[in-house]
């Protein structure tokens, strides 16, 4: 069916269907009530929610402490290679030094981009741990938002059996609504200043892939019993740092 005929049929149907509307157009103009006010400490709330969905969250006050927490994880999993984002939070914690000290081969944009596509893919798929920063985090649901870009590959949080993410407190917002632009709800946005936060999505320039992650990979397909690690990482660690990023 060609485009014109397809759209003409839809137009006719949409017009006829207006006789059967079940809501008032004015309903959309009303503001949604605010999500509960967030007087609580966002890093603590985020950590609690991450634990509640089956992840493992650790809070650090300073970047040095965060470095120790990541070192513990590396000593626990003993990976031979790590697929890493290039991100200010990972620089702040000195990721490169940590990996070198332990003879873990870093796989990242700089090491990959000159290789041919097949070799890039082979290396990314065989990495034993994925280490990333985040673009934003949502305290209410224990969610990390990760936008893709060169240097911030989607596979880092997906292909390896273990994913470690590092979050700076200033990246945390209170509610899912706070990630979206122009949502008419009455809530105050404690964590970010309206309009100019890098955490907020810009409809005019979305990344090719933007993912919300809320837990380790799971399936309930066998008798509704939750089983972890089907396709994505079965182990999900989040290190939350209270100190500022810059």
């Amino acid at each position, binding site marked *: *069916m060609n485009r014109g005929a397809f*759209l*003409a*049929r*839809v137009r*006719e*149907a*949409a017009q*006829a*269907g*207006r006789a*059967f*509307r079940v*809501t*008032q157009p004015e*309903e*959309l103009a009303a503001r*949604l*009530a605010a999500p509960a006010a967030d007087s609580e400490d966002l890093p603590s709330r985020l950590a609690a929610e991450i634990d509640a969905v089956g992840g493992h969250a650790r809070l650090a006050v300073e970047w040095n402490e965060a470095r120790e927490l990541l070192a513990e994880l590396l000593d626990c999993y003993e990976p031979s290679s790590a697929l890493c984002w290039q991100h200010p939070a990972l620089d702040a914690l000195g990721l490169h030094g940590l990996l070198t000290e332990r003879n873990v081969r870093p796989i990242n*944009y700089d090491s990959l981009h000159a290789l041919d596509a097949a070799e890039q*893919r082979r290396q*990314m*798929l065989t990495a034993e741990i994925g280490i990333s920063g985040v673009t934003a985090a949502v305290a209410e*649901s*224990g*969610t990390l938002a990760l936008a*893709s*870009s*060169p240097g911030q*590959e*989607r596979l880092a949080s*997906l292909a390896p059996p273990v994913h470690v993410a590092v979050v700076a407190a200033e990246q945390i917002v209170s509610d*899912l*609504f706070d990630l*979206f*632009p122009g949502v*008419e709800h009455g809530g105050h946005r404690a964590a970010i200043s309206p309009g100019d936060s890098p955490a907020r*999505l810009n*409809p005019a320039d*979305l*990344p*090719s*892939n*933007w*993912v919300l*992650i*809320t*837990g*380790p*990979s*799971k*399936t309930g*397909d*066998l*008798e*509704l019993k939750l*089983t972890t690690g*089907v*396709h*994505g990482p079965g182990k999900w660690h989040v290190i939350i740092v209270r100190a500022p990023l810059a």
Partner: protein
Amino acid sequence: MTSSSYARHEHHEFQAASAEALADANLQLALAHLGDTLGQRNRAAFAALAGADELRQRARAIKDAALANLDEHLKTLESSVERRGGHVHYAGDAADARQIVLDILRSRGAKRVVKSKSMTSEEIHLNAALAAEQIEAVETDFGEYIIQVAGHRPSHLVAPAIHLRTPQVAEVLSGDAGEPLPADAEQLAAYARRRLRAEFARADAGITGANFLVAETGTVVLVSNEGNIRLTTALPRIHIAIVGIEKVIPRLADMPVFLKVLARAATGQKLSIYTSFVTGPRRASELDGPEEFHLVLLDNGRSRILAGPLRESLFCIRCGACLNACPIFRNVGGHAYGGVYAGPIGAVLTPLYDGLAANEHLPHASSLCGACQAACPVKIAIPEMLIQLREQLHHEPGKLGFAEAAAYRLWSITMRHPTLYRIGTWLATRLSRFLVRSAKGDRPRWLRRLPGGLHGWTASRDFPAPAHQRFRDTWSENRIHSNHP
């Protein structure tokens, strides 16, 4: 394992299939906990969400408004997708959609396809069409993979293999593995991970559906718990999304409203594990993601529904909550319904898409208890729609037997003539007294067996016995005996 063909093929045999389902001990065990797991989690999650009803009403209002100008939103969507380097295709029906997908794959020499769970692709019978062209398609959702190997149809919107128990799954996957696998969920999932990772790595194209399409940004929103959808949209060089036109949402800002109610309704989670916003192919210099993106917009009967009184059925966001809430579904399972969509919403959608006359039993496969509407994240008035379909059914030629038609005519005449009505109720009290005599004791409250041709009605339920005295007689007596001054 059931040898029934109902699990394998679409059919119009609701009564025979549900009778078989009720007698299937394994299926009954598999369905037993649906209500107190997923059903209960849905209720708890909405109870814990502040302003839940306001959000559900808003989601409903957004859908209603989007459908009222759907053609405009489709045009916006098209330009948004193209601006980001994607391609939009229009499929008027299932055959169109299959042809479009085959053309894309053939012209690019794609031989291997990974798929993530998509009811739309079930609806257009894509897998059979791909197989006929020697294109190998592998389902990657764990539940979908199990039933693909078993040759079954999905039996639930979000848990497609809910009809199988773990030992049955072990048997199915052991055949696939060529070695015996233990009946252990962790180990079976680990097998699927290994087996399917290899398929992801070598696939030429990934085919998905979509939970939502955002018109202003050209974004495909995909929700999953396993991560298979992310792999499907990260590794193959071509991404094809096949999506019904009713999935279009005007603005990005509308998305949190739907995301907040979708996962809560489906599984009681605040959000599913992965919610992906996919906007076009990978950008220059990105190392992963598809090089090509195609969006296939599917009508296939949707515009016909959009123009009519049951348009509200297009609000459905496919969470499966009405299935878990439904006492009928929880007893007969998904395959009994015969069509692509099962449960209460399937009882509405299948007659609309596939024809009412051929699916005459589906609008009656409900006690109209309203649990579906109460569980629905967009508050679709499913019971009301089932009643409308029942009414339409009576206008379908040849759908009413002679005896039934005569009985309704007699009923209609009696109800319009007070004298006839009085005689009728008097006869009923005589019947009651006769029953008391034959029961030699208290007046029976329920009749176990109706006489003559009516005994079919009491084969699986009792009939309420008529009262021994008419209401009008009781009323008159009480007026006489009461001591008003």
